[in-house]
């Protein structure tokens, strides 16, 4: 007899054919009801289907842990896919799990997870494997765990069934190339429902920068930005850097020609776990007055120093929120469709990068 007062109950199964999968899941639910104590009511519920495409077993384990932690707030059918197109022989194995967690009182929310190991040719046709497993009438979110190849994910078939694609452009070896691929998909389809974790990590920076210009004394200077410097850690400027520059350029409608001088650079520095940006500086001039805003990460806080030639000296100190992977994915699951501000920042970021690269070549 299982201990029904445990916080979590797990039942598992294995099938080697997708045909058997649905029936096996139903059997797991029945078993949970049969073995549950009278006082416990497992609730079968799902608000979305989360498809996590993983590069290897280790990233699948990481994704499974995130899904497990999110189940209480985002009960979902999770489909974890580990695809190896070079493995032989061709085939698909599926491991199923039903995990029920107490949510207070006698209620338990049960989340389903299906882990698919895909070998050989089927790895090139993941959409055909996943589509029959999607739950009807609820959103589908595709999460690219780590840095799986982008081509399949950005294909029109996938964009047609996914409400949102969650990825981390800074997880790829060449983040700039990833941004270009995303921008080109946007141009092609006129729509890009992407939740980029690099963009999500910028939120505290965007908020502090916005807040620095909120006061009546500072707001006019947004029309007089002359210089922007952004520095990130690493060998090359990160996607975060480019997106932040692209965001400022798009929001402040900077012209391609005659706009502020923009410098995006990288410095090998102590690795920051929760993002790559080390600092941002803006220098503004308007009607003979000057203003400077400098934002730096200082330990566990983000500190903005604001000063003007007219003598204003103010500051903003914010806790540097430390969103871990679970929090970042959870935040993305609350969004749907295209983030227009992101798409505009992305387009300007890739244009700025191209201009800077052309300048460097000359």
């Amino acid at each position: 007899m299982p201990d029904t007062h445990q916080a979590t109950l797990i039942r598992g199964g294995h099938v080697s054919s997708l045909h058997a999968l649905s029936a096996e899941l139903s059997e797991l639910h029945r078993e949970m009801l049969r073995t549950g104590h009278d006082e416990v009511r497992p609730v079968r519920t799902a608000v979305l289907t989360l498809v996590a495409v993983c590069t290897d077993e280790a990233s699948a384990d990481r994704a499974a842990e995130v899904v497990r932690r999110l189940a209480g707030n985002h009960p979902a059918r999770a489909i974890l896919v580990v695809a190896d197109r070079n493995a032989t022989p061709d085939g698909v194995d599926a491991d199923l799990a039903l995990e029920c967690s107490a949510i207070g009182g006698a209620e338990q929310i049960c989340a389903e997870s299906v882990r698919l190991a895909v070998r050989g040719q089927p790895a090139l046709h993941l959409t055909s494997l996943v589509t029959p497993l999607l739950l009807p009438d609820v959103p589908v979110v595709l999460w690219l765990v780590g840095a799986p190849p982008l081509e399949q994910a950005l294909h029109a078939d996938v964009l047609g069934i996914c409400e949102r694609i969650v990825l981390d452009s800074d997880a790829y070896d060449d983040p700039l190339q990833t941004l270009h691929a995303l921008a080109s998909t946007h141009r092609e389809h006129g729509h890009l429902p992407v939740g980029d974790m690099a963009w999500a990590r910028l939120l505290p920076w965007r908020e502090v920068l916005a807040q620095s210009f909120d006061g009546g004394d500072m707001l006019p200077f947004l029309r007089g930005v002359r210089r922007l410097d952004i520095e990130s850690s690493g060998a090359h400027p990160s996607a975060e850097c480019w997106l932040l520059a692209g965001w400022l350029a798009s929001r402040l409608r900077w012209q391609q020609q005659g706009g502020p001088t923009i410098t995006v650079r990288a410095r090998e520095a102590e690795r920051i776990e929760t993002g790559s940006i080390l600092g941002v500086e803006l220098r503004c001039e308007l009607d003979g007055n000057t203003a400077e805003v400098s934002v730096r990460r200082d330990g566990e806080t983000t500190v903005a120093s604001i000063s003007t030639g007219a003598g204003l000296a103010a500051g903003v100190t914010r806790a540097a929120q430390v969103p871990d992977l679970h929090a970042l994915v959870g935040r993305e699951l609350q969004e749907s469709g295209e983030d227009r501000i992101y798409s505009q920042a992305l387009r300007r970021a890739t244009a700025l990068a191209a201009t800077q690269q052309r300048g460097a070549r000359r």
Partner: protein
Amino acid sequence: MATAPPAVNPLREGLRLERTPPPCALVIFGASGDLTRRKLVPALYALTAGGLLPPGFTVVGAARTEMSDEQFRETLRDSVEKLGRVPPQPEVWNDFAKGLRYAQVDFEAEGGFDQLKQVLAEVDRERGTGGNRVYYLSIPPSGIGTVARRLGAEGMSAVPDTPGGFCRLIVEKPFGRNLETARELSRDLHHSFAEEQIYRIDHYLGKETVQNLLVFRFANGIFEPLWTRQYIDHVQITVAESIGVEGRGKYYEEAGALRDIVQNHIMQLVALVGMEPPADFAAETVRDEKVKLLRAVRPILDDEVMASTVRGQYGPGWIEGERVPGYREEPGVPADALRETFVAIKLDIDNWRWAGTPFYVRTGKRLPKRATEIAIQFREVPHSPFRGHVTEQTRAATHDGIAPNLLVLRIQPDEGITLRFGAKVPGQALRIRSVSMDFLYGSAFLTESPEAYERLLLDCMLGDATLFARVDEVDEAWRFCTAILDGWRSRPPDRDSLPNYEAGTWGPQESHEMMARDGRSWRRL
């Protein structure tokens, strides 16, 4: 600067808050009191930590007690640490603490506001608050009129002559003791402040689940067509507290359950459940609709008061395994007190939507548990083809077999929505049982809900009065409650008839009898 500033900050587009308030000084009168420590400053710190307040935002504590800025900061830090939703982080706290000032005031004495005026002038100069003010009157009701008039006399209630400049006044309930004193208070406030400068706070309206009531009703197409007398049998609103008067016996003796809960919280809930759809979510539009509903609430006439209302007072009893004293044994309460700690009312609304569909409301102290719920009880099916197929369990709970549909909106705790409907019990036989479909607010959204005071303080600074009570709302709620108070006054309870309910029970028997007379019963919570 010669160039006109842009109207909005373009960098805010797409962020959590697309508009932040201009820098201002929030002056808390009664700053040495409990509310400042427990609620106001923790809420203001959480807003600061969340980046929702502008640089330069300043809190000025004002009270009779002598205190330095440093002592004020120390006391508050301690409270934020112990009671705040967001614990203080050293660097962020230090930044916030720079904007905490204190001024000793004397509400009556000549020159009693001088120190405050001096501190505010310094704050304007050093922190760029530009004369923008929010005055929060966290003081006993008797002092509110005095302070409001004094602010006017000192020239402190004027709106600064700058673009977007503001000067606002937040007042806490109780807004008077009856219709007449409520109007007196309004006259005092209006002597120095225009109505649009006055924000009457009812923290219930800042609760996410209360705001969700409007979203639930007006953002979903399927419920509103059913939201009428045609489909709804009656509505039950319960605001139950398991605590007693918690050392506030003296205050409670003056107030009672009707003034303390019904006049404000419950009448607001009645308005939100019963109002017509507003054309938009602008403050005046929403409040116009609420007032229309409150005007339609039928006054309970003198000779109906005993049939349509029930008063109760708790005696000793047991709650959650603990022996608790009766009301008359509480400190500050006389041994022959007649004050009501429980009230149940049958309310009729005279309009096309609700005629013939009563609202039953009840509130009380020392009830078995803390719960605020609104239950919409739908009418029974006009004809049931399933008679004889109902399970014993359901039959026992209903009069004739199939339980009518019930929609429950839980405000606190376990915030959420439950819909009860009948379902076939699996098996060869046709058997029907009531089942519940639950939506749990907390488990559907990852984001932690802000405290009610965070939302309301920010709204006030932004000039959004939607969630604050307007003078005519207060008047209408008092019109209804004052009629009951008048009826009760002419029929005082017999001294020996009280207490009439045991702590830990759902109120006096008469409350159940009132429902039974209409062929209905209170829900078991």
